[in-house]
């Protein structure tokens, strides 16, 4: 498959702080790569390098077949960027902002106007289009910013936390827009803090921490990495814990993990149905009456916390 976004060994330092220490990425045409990572991991820096806003110190990257360092103009013709913070002219109206960007994208005055109207309509911005952006709410601003990045029908879209600060309705509108773009063959690199968003939209996910990609794969692959399904047993009082631990140990031949004030025990499941049945009868025989008994798949949150060691805010 054709690789549309490719990065190899990207390094970037700010003073003596190394923001990126060799980032490798590759995104096939028409797919969405979700870039996950704690605050300060280097997500924005990666996006800025790929969108030609920032020159990397080392490594090479190409977007839509053009090198970001040597052919930035060609790259810019083919990309749309929605940065982490809305980049709009506050004094101009929404429509004027879009038209200006359209003209600068060389759509021509008439072309820019038509395209702006289409996007205002699609993103449900019709009512506010004639007001200066400075009167917009945060969510409206973000939607306009997204419209701005779509103005020239880009082949490649960079979205840096596109739904941060949006209410659930706006988020759904945006997700639909992104899915539409993917269906039309656009390649997307999206950073997000919402793991559910990555789960929903991403074909593949790359987890970045400390300026390095520490894991990548599909959402299911990543979940499998932190372990398979687990049986979780919640008991009512501390007195029941020893009996429950013994019962589960006998059934699974493994030491159960004890969490959350000791009331939740869990063991990983290999032979799902059989183990669940045996555990149920063993607990019953030991006269433990669990208040919770459930099979849980790891969520992307578990993956994230396991991979990044639960650390956030490595800045400063």
């Amino acid at each position, binding site marked *: 498959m054709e690789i549309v976004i490719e990065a190899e060994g990207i390094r970037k330092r700010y003073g003596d702080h190394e923001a990126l220490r060799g980032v490798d990425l590759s995104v096939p045409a028409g797919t969405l790569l979700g870039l996950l990572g704690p605050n300060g991991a280097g997500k924005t820096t990666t996006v800025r390098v790929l969108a030609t806003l920032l020159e990397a110190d080392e490594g090479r990257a190409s977007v839509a077949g053009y090198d970001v360092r040597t052919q930035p103009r060609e790259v810019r013709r083919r990309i749309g960027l929605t*940065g982490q913070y809305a980049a*709009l002219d*506050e004094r101009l109206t929404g429509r004027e902002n879009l038209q200006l960007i359209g003209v600068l994208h060389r759509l021509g005055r008439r072309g820019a106007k038509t395209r702006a109207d289409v996007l205002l309509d699609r993103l449900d911005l019709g009512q506010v289009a004639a007001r200066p952006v400075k009167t917009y709410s945060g969510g409206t601003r973000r939607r306009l910013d997204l419209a701005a990045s779509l103005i020239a029908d880009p082949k490649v879209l960079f979205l840096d936390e596109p739904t941060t600060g949006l209410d659930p309705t706006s988020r759904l509108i945006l997700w639909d827009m992104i899915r539409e773009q993917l269906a039309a063959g656009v390649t997307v690199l999206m950073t997000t803090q919402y793991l559910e968003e990555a789960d929903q939209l991403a074909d593949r996910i790359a987890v970045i921490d400390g300026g390095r990609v520490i894991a990548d794969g599909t959402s299911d692959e990543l979940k499998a990495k932190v372990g398979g399904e687990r049986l979780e047993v919640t008991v009512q009082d501390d007195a029941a814990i020893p009996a429950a631990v013994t019962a589960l140990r006998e059934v699974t031949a493994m030491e159960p993990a004890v969490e959350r004030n000791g009331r939740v025990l869990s063991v990983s499941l290999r032979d799902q149905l059989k183990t669940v049945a045996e555990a149920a009868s063993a607990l019953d025989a030991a006269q433990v009456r669990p208040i919770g008994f459930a099979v849980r798949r790891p969520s992307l949150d578990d993956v994230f916390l396991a991979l990044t060691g639960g650390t956030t805010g490595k800045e400063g």
Partner: protein
Amino acid sequence: MELVSDVSALFGRHMRHLARIPEKLLSVTLMPVAYVIVFGVLFGSAISVPGSDYRSYLMAGIFTQMMLTNVGNTALGVAGDLDNGVVDRFRSLPMSRSAVLIGRTLSDVALAVIACVAMAVVGYLIGWRVHQGIPKAIAGFGILLLLGYAMSWLGALIGLLARSAEAVNSIAFMLVMPLTFLSNAFIPLDGLPGWLRLLCEWNPVSAVVAACRELFGNTSTGTGKSALPVQYPIPLSLALIALLLAIVVPAAVGAYRKAAAR
């Protein structure tokens, strides 16, 4: 051609700002008018210079001072765009690299034109006249606007390096104050001690002011020998402005690349 279309789009953006930012509109109408009234009427009535009335003599100085305020205007605009991410947006577009600064400086010169018209009208009302004919007067305004253009580029450079409005304001002030007052804008230089006089005469602002006085026919009949820029103010003011542009334009374009890549 692409550069022209980019610049004209950005020019349109700045003209829209003029209508929407009241401070900006005031700074090109009310402020220059206040300058003329304060300096022209107040000072102009109190002091006299040989060979001309001080009020007419002052006008070239007031026009020139107004051109110097472009340093601060442009610097603030550029720093603001950097701050709110507009520059990032522009940098992700396939536009000509220098279009952003050219559009900004040209529109600030357009504002200077408005200011000049306002000042000339008020000047006329308080008795200022040109005595060398309209074409020469227009040439004088041409030199003024060239200075304004160079000052805008200088402002762009400062805005890109300083980035914050506070820093921009104090740098612009520290630069413009000595340029204005260590010149012949408001006083004839004949009476100054030798070294100070030399310094003031080589100040490019003095050359521009002297050139305008010559072209407007508002010169005083000062005595004593003067340094080159004041003796041949028209060619030398043009040369000094060209020199300034030759230094500042590439520096600002370079700073734009670096500043936006942070």
